[in-house]
């Protein structure tokens, strides 16, 4: 897929709570094609401690309104600056980067999308994409420390059945995503997950045990995002591969997990 460096316009910055913002970007030109699971490298201007671009997942794309959504969690100066952008300001992005989630084979497959914290970001676009392609049985399982870490629940509800866990029992079942009762009661045919590594490893262990197809979206420290610097490798059964080009989505059978 052709990559672009684009100046997009901030249409709206919805501060979901003091940790998360949803940036709605648009452009005077048509947005390029992007796939679920891909990400953008965002240039953060006017931030002295942010030298390199920051990788941020494609949260949602609406071609009818020409909107690209980014869901950003404040963890440092770069994300803080992004979350304080005002409507009308310009954000420079390189996109779309990386591979994408794999389409399941049968429209009737029972699909589970698991997101932890800001790891839900790529899942919204994936859920909507699956729904649009005619998949019928989509469950989204979101987990977080507390209700504040469960994001975009209403958006997800348009495309999927939504179930949740929180560690403090403020929403859904109490505990971690891997402890959700649905994992015991349902027979999923494919699992897609993104979130903290321990969570993804637990999900992968579950999938391996049950012999379920499973893709995880990995994070890594990135400098270029386009396969030029070799800084973002992860260790696979085939050796070191770049997360920015051969990932971020990996089938767990390829990893040394």
């Amino acid at each position: 897929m052709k990559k672009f460096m684009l100046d997009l316009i901030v249409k709206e910055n919805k501060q979901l709570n003091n940790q998360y913002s949803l940036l709605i970007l648009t452009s005077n030109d048509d947005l390029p094609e992007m796939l679920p699971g891909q990400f953008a490298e965002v240039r953060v201007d006017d931030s002295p401690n942010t030298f390199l671009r920051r990788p941020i997942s494609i949260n949602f794309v609406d071609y009818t309104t020409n909107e690209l959504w980014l869901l950003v969690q404040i963890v440092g100066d770069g994300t803080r600056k992004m979350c304080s952008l005002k409507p009308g300001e310009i954000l420079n992005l390189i996109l779309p980067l990386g591979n994408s989630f794999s389409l399941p084979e049968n429209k009737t497959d029972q699909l589970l999308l698991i997101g932890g914290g800001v790891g839900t970001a790529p899942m919204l676009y994936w859920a909507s994409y699956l729904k649009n392609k005619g998949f019928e049985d989509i469950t989204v399982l979101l987990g977080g420390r507390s209700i504040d870490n469960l994001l975009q629940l209403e958006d997800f509800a348009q495309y999927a059945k939504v179930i949740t866990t929180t560690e403090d029992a403020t929403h859904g079942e109490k505990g971690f995503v891997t402890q959700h009762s649905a994992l015991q009661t349902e027979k999923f045919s494919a699992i897609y997950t993104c979130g903290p590594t321990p969570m993804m490893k637990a999900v992968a262990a579950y999938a391996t045990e049950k012999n379920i197809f499973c893709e995880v979206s990995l994070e890594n420290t990135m400098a270029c995002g386009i396969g030029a610097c070799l800084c973002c490798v992860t260790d696979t059964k085939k050796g070191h591969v770049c997360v920015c080009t051969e990932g971020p989505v990996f089938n767990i059978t390829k990893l040394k997990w």
Partner: protein
Amino acid sequence: MVDLSVKLGKLQLKNPVMTASGTFGYGTEYCDFIDISRIGGIIVKGTTLRRREGNPYPRMAETPSGMLNAVGLQNKGVDYFIEKINPVIKDIDTNFLVNVSGSTVDDYVITAEKINELDNIPGIELNISCPNVKEGGMAFGTSCPSAASVVREVRKVYKKELMVKLSPNVTNIVDIAQVVEAEGADSISLINTLLGMAVDAEKRKPVLSTITGGLSGPAVKPVALRMVWQVAQVVKVPVVGMGGIMNATDAIEFLLAGASAVQIGTANFIDPTVTVKVIEGIEEYLKRHNFSSVQDIIGALEV
């Protein structure tokens, strides 16, 4: 019209802007963003005799106005380059130079010999300065006798442009440059990365898997400029300057300090179109100051 072309030893470049090894892949990674044939020269990523897996991750740390990398020369070996990469880049109208690294003098020599056979590759950049591999690389570039021996042996087998890339992690860069020139280098490029380190205070751990790594980006520009200036004062072969170039002004600073050409590395990560912008910016500068050729500003610093 201003003349941007420069002669670099046995090479003729259409303009003085090249890309730095390890930061521009094989060039093709950037084709979506720019017409890479506009670039004066492309130094492909560090190539060794045998395939190398590179260092474990994490391999990167951001630092103030710069970054540390510990890639460790991950590459599939020179034969892979010859068989798989070279056919792809063959017809792109710019100078592709291969950055050659090794753990022993023999490694360097055999790799260089193999590349000498490739008609479309007009030169190599001998990397005697990689701080990220234990056995080789930087050790060669930090003492005069070892720098001399590797250049001498490679020169015997390599007939085209032999550019030698120096390490900045030395007490006296001029000594190394003079030795390398004496052994027959056609040009000298500098600087490779400065050896640095990053610590995660919260985790109480080094950020990089290798503890130390190579520092690049604007943070190193003052050191790079100083070394380029020092070397350009004493050697007769052309000098290629790099280290923290982010825009045309930075590139012009290196040319003024005595570099006949520049390489751009880390800046490509932030702006994949930076090379073309720098070429255009140099042209604009020359016009604005009424110079007819980039030659007019090379080493033109008034001291």
